[in-house]
């Protein structure tokens, strides 16, 4: 039974879009953003990757809200968007402070912040 399910899965998966498709897309975007945070050394690009992760979470919130018929997911997306905007403002202010002192936004200069 299990083999049969796997066998007819592909055409079904391509021709019928549902919740799993959006969840897989959302997790791919989240993982891309996480790789950016781990691998990039530029503080601004790291913050862009964080925005990418937040967007991926928003996508899965909206997908769940659509397919479960609950509006709470969309309300939560509002909150996430506001927090993301606030985080971007504070983070960029920190980056500006670092740049004013070191003329560089590479993440290795952030360790000089510790007293």
């Amino acid at each position, binding site marked *: 039974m299990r083999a049969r399910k796997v066998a007819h899965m592909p055409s079904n998966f391509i021709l019928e879009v549902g919740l799993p498709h959006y969840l897989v897309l959302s997790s791919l975007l989240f993982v891309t953003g996480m790789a950016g945070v781990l*691998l990039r050394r530029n503080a601004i690009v790291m913050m862009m990757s964080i925005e990418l992760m937040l967007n991926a979470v928003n996508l899965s919130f909206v997908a769940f809200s659509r397919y479960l018929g609950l509006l709470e997911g969309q309300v939560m*997306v509002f909150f996430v968007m506001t927090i993301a905007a606030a985080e971007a403002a504070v983070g960029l202010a920190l980056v500006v402070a670092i740049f004013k002192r070191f003329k560089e936004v590479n993440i290795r200069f952030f360790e000089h912040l510790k007293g």
Partner: protein
Amino acid sequence: MSPDVFLFWFLAILTVISGLMVVLMTNPVFSALSLAMTMVLIGALFVTLNATFLAGVQLIVYAGAVMVLFVMVLMLFDLKNEIYAFTRGKISGAFKVGSVGILAGLVIGSIGLTASTLLQSSTAPLVSMSGDTTKDLGKILFSQYLLGFEALGALLLIVAVGAVALARSKGGTHAK
């Protein structure tokens, strides 16, 4: 293949490509432009999920305000292509890529294992969500979640003041 399905795959593939370009471009300005494209595409995906108002907010807040903030700061800095754009250690880099791959495998594997039940419950969405949801969203946001909404307003005010204070600081304990 119906238009809805084609639209989803088109948007999904473009979103993944532009998301990868955010991480892989060595010039930060190109990263910012790819991020703006990703935001617009995610807004389009919101439309395919019947969240039209959220799609508009996504365009205005993310693709508009936040991206302008990023690009303005990038222009302040006048950054060129970076020499150390990526982390340098080969072994630690391999560990990071490996951990990211394992996370992706775990998440997508668990979605795949539960896909049959998810599809069963998801192929027939509820009738209330089939039309435009903006009116219901406004009702629930200003009744049940009013306190959180007002708290967010206070948070934004505090953050605006704090961002100005941080940007004007001269480097904390290292100030000369």
